[in-house]
């Protein structure tokens, strides 16, 4: 029953993708240069792949996504856990979080470039800063909901602190880590493109800006499609299996 349902599900998904392609194809039939059809985009994509810089651009962008994601998750989680644990720290920094959540990404990006310089450090710092507040808020919620009675069990056993962390504390936060990871990745890769557009000379964002100036819509779509495909693959092949592993006990 379950497997038939998922089969039906994936069938629907395939149908939906084909439908999108068909609508796109139909809309492009007018021959307007504003909307090249799927085939023209596919040709551009293969051309970028073989003769262009698509691979290296994807590499640069992914490296920036990874670096800023790791920094933002580590810093945000630590801040969030501290704030969730201690009312005093929470009261002291709550305003900062609200500020961090509401400063427009563009402002942070511009300020980082102005303060740090037009370099890689500024680019990654700008992206990470945009995400820190969000992961801190999510992990704070998690730390607040921690079940102290389970920590008492570990305390009675006199477990060393690293075992308490691994076996009694962090597992309670897994759902929050996963939520922060999900929303974080989708936020970060969008901001990375803006950072590259404004202040870098490689990467997907930079190349999109270039094609924008050349009015080259086929290549803009080709770059977008390849990057979206990679992010979907990361979701499907890394995040989702990881989540299944961490929450196996719930099923």
């Amino acid at each position, binding site marked *: 029953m379950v497997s038939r349902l998922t089969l039906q599900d994936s069938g629907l998904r395939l149908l939906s993708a084909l439908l999108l392609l068909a609508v796109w194809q139909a809309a492009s039939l007018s021959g307007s240069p504003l909307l090249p059809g799927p085939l023209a985009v596919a040709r551009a994509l293969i051309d970028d792949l073989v003769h262009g810089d698509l691979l290296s651009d994807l590499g640069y962008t992914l490296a920036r996504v990874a670096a800023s994601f790791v920094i933002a998750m580590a810093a945000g989680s630590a801040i969030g856990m501290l704030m969730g644990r201690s009312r005093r720290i929470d009261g002291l920094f709550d305003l900062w979080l609200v500020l961090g959540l509401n400063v427009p990404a563009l402002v942070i990006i511009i300020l980082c470039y102005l303060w740090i310089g037009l370099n890689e450090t500024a680019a990654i710092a700008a992206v990470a800063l945009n995400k820190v507040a969000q992961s801190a808020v999510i992990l704070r919620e998690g730390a607040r909901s921690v079940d102290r*009675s389970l920590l008492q069990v570990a*305390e*009675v*056993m006199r*477990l*060393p602190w690293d075992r308490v962390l691994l*076996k009694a504390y962090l597992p309670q936060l897994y759902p929050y880590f996963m939520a922060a990871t999900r929303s974080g990745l989708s936020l970060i890769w969008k901001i990375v493109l803006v950072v590259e557009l404004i202040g870098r000379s490689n990467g997907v964002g930079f190349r999109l800006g270039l094609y924008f100036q050349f009015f080259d819509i086929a290549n803009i779509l080709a770059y977008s499609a390849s990057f979206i495909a990679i992010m979907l693959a990361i979701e499907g092949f890394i995040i989702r299996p990881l989540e299944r592993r961490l929450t196996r*006990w*719930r099923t």
Partner: protein
Amino acid sequence: MNALDIAIARKIYRKGGRDAVALADFSFGVPHGQFLCIVGPSGCGKTTLLSIVAGLDRDFEGSVGRADRARIGFVFQTPRLMPWLTARDNVRLALYPPPRGEGRAEALLREMNLGGQLDSYPGHLSGGQQRRVALARAFVNEPELLLLDEPFTSLDAPTAQRLRDSLLALWAKHQPTVLFVTHDLREALSLGDRILFLSAGPGRIVLDLPIELARPRLPDGPAVEAARKRLLDTYPQLLAGLDKQKSAEDAA
């Protein structure tokens, strides 16, 4: 020397913004290897007392004397298993350093009739099975001090009796000092070397009673029943609250 020397002058509880006294003028000693039952109506501070003895609650006036590094086994009122660990890993958690391969944890779980559930997560176990895992976890490191907080409530009578038997077997084997909290007088009479009776909050010791019935005893056997009758006749006021509660439960 006693295994435990407890002298609690006062334990205050904050409840709804107001201070309430949970325990007052509380002092007793427990010799090594004694099986001490603590009986009292609900809300008399029994659970608080165990938390203080275990060192989980340090916010009280007074002192608890016990060997600092004594291994403690604690069976809480609810099983408190880690939901993300299998039954086996929940029990092995108490063993440090973590053992390799099969060992005491598995043997204990099999002894408790959980051989088929070694790799089940707590969410897949029944309430009774979860309680048994919690017992195995408290037993597995051969504690010198075993604290149990109404461990057998909400179990069916045969299961509860089987678990009482394994508790007594463990106690006979390793001779830990046991503090067993219950509100069931029959259970206390069938298990303990000695019973402390507490009054309703703030909890005070109203009677310290040695039990000298021959073992093994059954909670619904004639010896226990006779001792209970005698007790209720001798101390009608002291135990009035307790017995009322008991009969209310029987009626329910």
